[in-house]
């Protein structure tokens, strides 16, 4: 190897080194350590952790709360992802066109995105409060329906959280659709209009297919968020009543930092990592196709 090339090698690695070291310490190492600790017992007092093989995983399969929480998370994902993506697209199409009050509309749709989830949760907690909350004032005061404890009832609590999440996320995803819409040349729509295509037809056959890469990008982000964001649960329900609103990451937090059962928390984290890893592989497969598409 000649001197210039050796220098390139060394410089390249030196430039990368600080970031790589931190990434290794706080992303790669913990991911591997999670696996290692999930195969051990939780150290208690003077008793150190011992190798237990797959015992924690056996416990996981037999843990009804785990299955309940996983089910909740799937419902939560199914409730938030399609709705927030559809709303985001609708919002983007609206504020991209000539509509009166466009500035205000954009502002109204996007503002929830800038607020911390914890602030959002506080505001909505008040909104859902029995008797005093705006929702009860509307349903009981105006419509005369019987009073209902929205967050305190197992059948409605998860839906309430889904609504909050959609409210928070739709405006964020709208931005990506808006960027994509602005990149589509207007001549395409005009050409379709000359051919006599209606607006809906044009959207369905021209615009929507062109937005496919954006939809995939937003979809992946929405999936990650549905497994990553639990701030609102800490504030609004603490997973209750009876774990009806607990999600996987919140359960990990409970097990790891309230019951201090770190081995089982690691086992649960492995499930979460498996879900996110699957999402990564799917995205990679789709991204490959996207390159061919262009």
């Amino acid at each position, binding site marked *: 190897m000649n001197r210039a090339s050796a220098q390139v090698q060394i410089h390249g690695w030196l430039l990368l080194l600080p970031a790589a070291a931190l990434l290794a310490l*706080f992303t790669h190492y913990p991911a591997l350590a999670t696996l290692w600790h999930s195969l051990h017992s939780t150290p208690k007092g003077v008793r150190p952790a011992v190798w237990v093989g797959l015992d924690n995983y056996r416990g996981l399969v037999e843990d009804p709360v785990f299955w309940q929480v996983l089910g909740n998370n799937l419902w939560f994902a199914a409730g938030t992802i399609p709705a927030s993506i559809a709303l985001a697209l609708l919002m983007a199409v609206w504020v991209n066109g000539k509509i009166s009050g466009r500035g205000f509309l954009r502002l109204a749709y996007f503002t929830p995105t800038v607020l911390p989830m914890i602030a959002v949760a506080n505001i909505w907690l*008040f909104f859902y*409060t029995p008797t005093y909350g705006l929702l009860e004032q509307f349903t009981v005061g105006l419509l005369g329906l019987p009073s209902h404890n929205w967050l305190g009832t197992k059948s409605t609590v998860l839906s309430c959280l889904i609504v909050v999440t959609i409210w928070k996320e739709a405006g964020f995803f709208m931005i990506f659709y808006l960027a994509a819409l602005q990149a589509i040349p207007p001549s395409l729509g005009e050409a379709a209009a000359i051919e006599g295509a209606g607006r809906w037809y044009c959207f369905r056959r021209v615009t929507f297919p062109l937005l496919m890469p954006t939809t995939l990008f937003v979809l992946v982000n929405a999936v990650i968020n549905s497994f990553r964001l639990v701030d609102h649960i800490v504030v609004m329900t603490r997973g209750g009543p009876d774990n009806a609103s607990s999600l996987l990451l919140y359960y990990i937090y409970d097990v790891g930092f309230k019951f201090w059962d770190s081995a089982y928390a690691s086992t649960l984290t492995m499930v979460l990592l498996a879900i996110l890893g699957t999402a990564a592989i799917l995205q990679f497969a789709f991204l490959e196709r996207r390159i061919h598409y262009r």
Partner: protein
Amino acid sequence: MTRALETIGAWLLAILWILPLAYAFWTAFHPPEFSTRFELFAPLTLQNFVNAWNAAPFARYFVNTVMLVALILGVQLVLVTLAAYAFARYEFRGRDVMFALVLVQLMIMPDVLIVENYRTMAALDLTDTITAIGLPYMASAFGIFLLRQTFKTIPRELDEAARVEGAGSLRVLWEVYVPLSRPVYIAYALVSVSYHWNNFLWPLIVTNSVGSRPLTVGLQVFSSTDQGIDWSIITAATLLTSGPLLVAFLLFQRQFVQSFMRAGIR
């Protein structure tokens, strides 16, 4: 006809979207007896904000959050710039593998590795410090990716011209690449600041004293323990904590939206 219907629909949705926030504003700026009663001429007041400010060490929380956000952004900008430069312009052995390893963080974010990262912080004796909140986020895969793409679009001729004039690698980076990528830096900084201003779960886990708690955690501690159900004060505190970001957003709306757009196009 459909146009008119769409306009009405768009406005209804916007009003629905702004309603929870408007409700919070109403409650925060009116005396408690009006917090759930709507009268057009109810007296306005700032007393709720004063009460909230005095009831908890919000000044300290503000300082903590500003320090946290500045620390993370400062370190991020340096690390991300160096790494992106290496990936964009150096053909060193193992580059593609390293890049793939960096991208892993896009999927497996520090947000989900709370159990192990807490263990690490305890081992390093860093728990309950602002450094501990920031450390897992400082090498940002998203930032490295974003800047690498940007650096790759900068013509090599500019790079070579600077080198002919005798500039070393780091000076070329500082005088050619960094200035030409300014819009991307601004976009990244806005996204990073709003992310870490708002981040909650990890700071909640790793801090347990007033000296290190950021605003989000301070707000949660305040509204869950100190205040029964005095909603006027809680909403005032809520608006207080999100206030600076909200005001910045209203002032620089265009930059915010463009930054989020730029950060999303990849």
